[in-house]
């Protein structure tokens, strides 16, 4: 009997939850805000689906309704990716500056 590919993906999913569990417990509490902003940024990898949706053309018309939803999702995810990573970087930069300033 063959195993449904879904089971493989499900295994990855469950294992990733465990990885997430242990990795996140090791995050120092003082960095919990950057943790939220960076998880925000990486969850925007959903842009992958948005790009596929936007580029799909079955009828030759690139502005089918399904494409438009794809384009909209690209904008939303892009705001998040750039905004999320940059604001995280900005925050983490503040944690560095102090070390230098220490007299």
């Amino acid at each position: 009997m063959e195993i449904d590919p879904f089971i493989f993906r499900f295994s990855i999913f469950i294992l990733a939850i465990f990885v997430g569990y242990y990795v996140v417990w090791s995050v120092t509490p003082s960095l919990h805000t950057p943790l939220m902003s960076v998880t925000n940024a990486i969850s925007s990898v959903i842009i992958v689906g948005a790009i596929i949706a936007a580029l799909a053309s079955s009828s030759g018309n690139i502005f089918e309704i399904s494409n438009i939803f794809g384009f909209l999702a690209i904008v939303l995810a892009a705001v998040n990716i750039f905004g999320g990573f940059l604001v995280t970087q900005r925050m983490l930069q503040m944690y560095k500056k102090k070390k230098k300033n220490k007299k």
Partner: protein
Amino acid sequence: MISANLSAIFYLISGILFILALRGLSSPETSRQGNLFGILGMIIAITVTFLTVGNFSTSTIYVFIFLLVGGAIGAFIAFKIPMTAMPELVAGFHSLVGLAAVFVAISAFLNPDAFNLGSPGDIKLASLIEMSIGAAVGAITFSGSIIAFLKLRGIMSGSPITFSGQHILNLLIGISIIVLIYFLCSSQSENFFWSMIAISFLIGVLLIIPIGGADMPVVISMLNSYSGWAAAGIGFTLENTALIITGALVGSSGAILSYIMCKGMNRSFFSVILGGFGGDASKGQEKKKDQKPVKSGNAEDAAFLLKNASSVIIVPGYGMAVAQAQHALREMVDTLKKNDIKVSYAVHPVAGRMPGHMNVLLAEANVPYDEVFELDDINNDFANTDVAFVIGANDVTNPVAKTDPQSPIFGMPVLDVEKCKSVLFVKRSLSPGYAGVDNELFYRENTMMLFADAKKMTEDIVKNI
């Protein structure tokens, strides 16, 4: 055009880079490198997607344009946003992830061929369930985050909105979402899909309105978690490893943060979610007020006390964020340090409106992170400290949590500020904090209340030292 197998490997690599991005946050030293890993993972995922789709046409140009438009908006926000506005920014970002998940799910539903899921009206059952879950959770994340955003921004009142039958209504809506997904699967009818999304938006609103302002740390973490599960749901639909791994990471990260926040308030997750806490504030304690004597002082008295202390612990809270007093505070601490006074900061896990809120503000004011301590690490030091300087915190210092089993905050871990020789309490009035509980600390012998705006008071103290 690259093969599906090769792109799957690349998606796996970007998933691993995302794990490393979170791993980096275990210390401030490695955190920036971690963030770079995250960016690299994102670049790989996006590039691979373009290569997999392959046909470069006019729509590719449009994709780039939209990408850059979104990116420019995001970058603009990231540079402009003041650090005090971080909680609402994060809530806003969550709403975008949720909405993007909904849009991708809609797109996959309308054009399943593009994702190899079957054809319209004949979508694979498993894919249909996955995209429905992704869309429903995404919609809840979106509307819930919008409400959280409005509450944090102060556009909407932070006090809980409750009505009778609320929980039953929510339960009914929850059940009807499941029923609609069931009918959607059996009939493939668009109408069920749209109604399912519509009521998911509705329940997102209903779930968050009864939750009060100071429970926001839990709400934000919870929505963070939801946005992850939504992404994972879409990841299953698209059979994309990067998305599944990321969704699982973000989902468990948000869940852990919610747990930490609930523990910091000694409340169960369900009691927070059911909401209504703090709703009957100012009911019980009105009568007791004005009876007990309160010692209040001015900046001069405070400066005198601080100057003659040899050790000081600062306890910041949400009030410091509101007054934007972190820079003034840092200035005060610098002055104290010049006088050879030992100063450290004590941060309660739920101080502020989101996990780590106080730490970021202190970091912004250039406070070295090794002077900032968590509750467990510093609580024993209060007994050997001369002055506790409480600025904008309230409930997290209330000794009632340790002594009065009747109190709603009983059992909540609190900072033992009352053990200090003297306590300076910067606050605008004697009003109780969020929990609606009078703070016994105000009436203690060794407490001096400093009634003023946190920033102004701190500046005045600096002048007087």
